[in-house]
Structures are given as C-alpha cells and as structure tokens.
C-alpha cells in the first residue's frame, strides 16, 4: 500500500523526531528551571528568545537558518571545516533546526510545571539530604513526570509536524531530508491526492493513538494521585 519512498520518509521522520526530542529533553529542563526561578533582569529577554520560533513564520525562520548555514557564515563555515558537504540539506541541519523550532514546545510546559511547583518540596528534599541535582532527578522529576511526558510528547509531535523550516533548509532529499510533512506536501502539490490522503491518515492515526495512550495514562495517574 505504501511505497518505499513513503516508508523511507516515515522512518526518517521518526528518527528526526526522536533525536530532536532526546536533545530537547536534555537541554530544556535546566533552561526551563532557570526561566521559572531566576530573578535576573535578562530573564524576560531569554524567555522571549525561546518563544521566538512561535512567532516567526517557520519559512522565515528557515530562510534565516539557510543563510546561517551557508559557508559564508560562521556556523556553516565551522561545519564545513570538518565535513565535506554543507550543513543545509543534511540530516544534522534538520536536527539543529528542529531543536530550535521545537524548543518552546518543550520548555514551556516544563517551565509552567516548575513555576507551580511548591518550593516547600525542594526544602524537604534538601533536609532529607538530597543535593541540588539529586533533588531534581530523584524527586522533582518523578513528581512532575506528567509534565515531562507532555513536554516530550509535544516536542515530538511538533517535530513531526514541522514543515516550513524543513522546506527551506531540507532540499527534499529522499532518505536524508525528505520527511513526512514534506512528502505529504509534495503529494498535494503534484496533485497525487490519493497518496496524500493515505499518508495524512497514517500520520493522524499514529499521532492520535500515541497521544491518546499518553493522555490516558496521565489521566489514570492523576486519578490515582488526586484520588477522585
């Protein structure tokens, strides 16, 4: 039913989304923590910067990334110094772009959870002997697990749905940068509606079932904790 190209795009998309989510789940928590607690004056600035990908149309973001990735600019040049092809049109380029693009989706749920986290729990953890980082991953992480899961799921989902940025910097190379969203657009543009509908359906069915399962589990947990 699906063509080899479709499978390739699906596989690539999953790879991209997983890798991006992984990177985001490493980077985002400390950033979100800092954003939730810091009292420095530059915090609103950083907060706005993180939110920027929400505002900037993705194609525009992609356009500027394309410029940034070009060998004439620092990032692209540095990349070319130990790679033989440019950062644009490469899987690595897509990962970088996706991380930037999906960052707010992961940071914001976490930040919100951290803001609402009663600091008394941190205090208790400290008196129990848990150090700064231990507190985070042994107590706060399990406690806010739902928020972490939601953050991860949103980052993953949004990377799957990412289109504008990839359109600009991807170059539509099968197996390398032709992700599902691009392939879907391709089908639509070339009037291959049947393929487009099929792929959309698969995307929908997959995403929905993943989300329904995640949200279902979270609801169960909430029920258990709140003891309805």
């Amino acid at each position: 039913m699906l063509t080899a190209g479709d499978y390739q795009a699906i596989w690539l998309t999953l790879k991209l989304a997983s890798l991006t989510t992984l990177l985001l789940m490493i980077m985002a928590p400390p950033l979100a923590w800092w954003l939730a607690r810091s009292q420095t004056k530059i915090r609103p600035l950083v907060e706005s910067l993180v939110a920027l990908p929400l505002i900037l149309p993705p194609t525009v973001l992609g356009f500027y990334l394309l410029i940034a990735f070009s060998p004439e600019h620092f990032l692209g040049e540095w990349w070319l110094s130990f790679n033989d092809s440019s950062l644009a049109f490469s899987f690595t380029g897509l990962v970088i772009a996706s991380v930037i693009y999906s960052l707010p989706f992961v940071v914001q749920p976490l930040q919100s959870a951290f803001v609402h986290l009663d600091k008394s729990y941190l205090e208790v953890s400290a008196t129990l002997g848990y150090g700064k980082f231990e507190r985070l991953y042994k107590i706060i992480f399990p406690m806010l697990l739902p928020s972490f899961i939601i953050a991860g799921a949103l980052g993953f989902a949004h990377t799957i749905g990412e289109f504008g940025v990839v359109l600009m910097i991807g170059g539509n190379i099968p197996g390398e940068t032709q992700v599902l969203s691009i392939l879907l657009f391709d089908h639509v543009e070339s009037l291959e509606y049947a393929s487009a509908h099929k792929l959309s359906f698969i995307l929908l069915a997959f995403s929905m079932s993943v989300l329904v399962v995640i949200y279902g589990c979270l609801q169960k947990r909430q029920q258990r904790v709140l003891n309805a």
Partner: protein
Amino acid sequence: MLKFNIQKAFNNNAVNDNVLHFEGEIELSGVCTIFGDSGAGKTTLLRCLAGLETCEGQIQFNQQAWLNTNALVNQNKFLLATEKRRIGMVFQEPRLFPHLNVQQNLLLAVAKATTQEHSDNIFTIDKLAQQLGFSELLTYQTTQLSGGQKQRIAIARALLTNPTLLIMDEPLSSLDISSKNLLLPFLKLVSLHIPILYVTHSIHELFYLSKNMLLVNEGKVEAIGEPQKLFLDSELSLRKFAHQGLIVNVQVKTIDLTEGLIEGLVDGQTLFINTVEEPKTKSIQVKINSRDVIIATKPIMDSSLLNCLSVQLVDFMKDDKNSMILTLKIGSQFIYARITSRSFHKLQLEVGSCVYAHVKTMSIIN
C-alpha cells in the same frame, strides 16, 4: 554546640524592613525548646539554621561551620548547603510528597540515610510505623491521610534520615491526645541519641521535654537557659506565664514501683512523685504547677495530700483581679503558688511568713 549570630531582613511592603536578629549558643544534648509568641520568629530562626532561608552572619555546629558571611576580606563567604548539614526537619505542615505513597515517602529518606557514614541507623520504617502507630497506613496515598496521620509520617521521615540534629516546628500540635501521649515520651527517648530543636506553644511539652530553652521575642533571642530559670526571671516576656509553674530538683531516696511512687528529697524535705518506670538518675527534675500548690498555715492531715513542704514566702504579686502569685522558697529552690486573693488575705500572709505548701502527687509532672 550550636552557635549562631544571624540577621534576616524581611521586606514587608512597610516603611522599614522587618529585621530579625538572632544570636545565641545552645548546648546540644536532649531537647532545646524554642518558645515565643506567634510571629516572634521561631520558624524563621529554624529555617535560617537549616539553611532554608538566606541570611547574614555565622552559624557554627559543633566543629563544623555552617555559615559565615562575615569572612575576612580575602576569604570567601561560606555557606554549607542544607543537604550537607545532616539535619532532620519536621515542618509546621507535613509536606509529604504527593506522588508517592506513605512507604515510598519514607524510603526516600532511608535511601539517603544509608549512603551516609552511620549506616547503623537506630530507626527502621517498620519499627517507627509500630511506635508511631501507622503500620496499616504504609500503602496509603498521602492524599488519603488525615492531618494527624500525615504529621506522624513526617516525623518518621525526618528520623529516618539519621540526622545529627533534629529540627521540629510544632510537630505535635495537630495530634490527638493519645498520639501526643505516645509521641512525647518517644521524642524524649529520641533526644537521648539525637539533639532536638523543638518549637512548641505548649508549656506542658516544653517542661516535659526540654532541659534547655531558647526564648524568642519580636525577632530576637531574648534568653537561653533552663526553663525553670527563665520562668523565674521577671524581666522576660515569659512573665505572663509565671502562673504556670516551675521545675525543682529532687534527690531520689526510694522507689516503690509496685505503687508507682518515688520518695524524693527537695532540699531535705520529702516529696512523693508518681512514676511508671525507674528513673535513670539519682537526681530528677519535676514540675510543680503554681495552680496546684495549696498553702496552709498548719500541715494538712487526714487528706489525700501526700506532700507537705515547709516553705517561706519570699515574694508575692497580684496576677489578675482575683489571684496572687506567691514565690516560695524551699531551701535553695523556688516554687510558685497561685491562690485567690481571698485566701491570701484570709491566711494573713506576708513576706517572710513560714507556711506549708501542699501538692497532690498526681499534679507533679515528672
């Protein structure tokens, strides 16, 4: 030994800041009770000592510096993080982790305790669950507990970290009488191993538990010392509790465990005290409440009163409209008696009078 000299400024939207300044040195053995009015600064002091509140000054715990912001110019300011101070803390609210059940909450404390030097923690979950009466609650979610149940678990959690200092902020105030009666002796026992800083509003708990007290008033340490000394001092804010009573030292003479009575000597005079177990030392301390002391000009006979002390009236003051507080001297020690003005006049008492002070054995707090 816990020595501190700390300042904490709160900005309360008011014209001038609310600056609390605590200075003192506490001998760390047994329970040291922190006592003071609501809003006096007890919780703040505990939080500063625990490192949960940023503050200026120095804190020294035994040989270990916990805080020093007044370092010399070329030295670094020093602050030991809370988790390195090895304290156990019970807050005014239970603060159990909502995502874990009771057992998991306790295990979180155990996990940390065993990774530290003294792995031979004298407490285990099972023992504590039995002693504090929550064995059946171990599988409960914390949201399924009553206020008092939560508080008992919070106490167990603090103990399970195997702390070198236990800090407790009104731990028993939400408990029922039976739990209190269970926990007070328990805490006294605990304090033989781990020194306790203990905030309470209950004079009963204060006298029952502590050899040492720290009086906080309006953001300052007003006094540190033995409770009976401070309660005798008319200069202190404790004056308003003068009616409550004093502690006296008693030399144990004989112990009759079948009748549950100790016969002791207070500066040579006999005093019967009720007890359930053999006292650990030859010299014990008991509290005599002023409201329980009966004054008579002749010894009272043919009554249930076992104790009759010959005392001298050294001072008296009007407490409120209808009562007088008498300071009575027994050898080198003092007790208070609170009687109605009518009785005072009827008995024609004056400073220097030699009278008999009677106290029911049942009223003496051991």
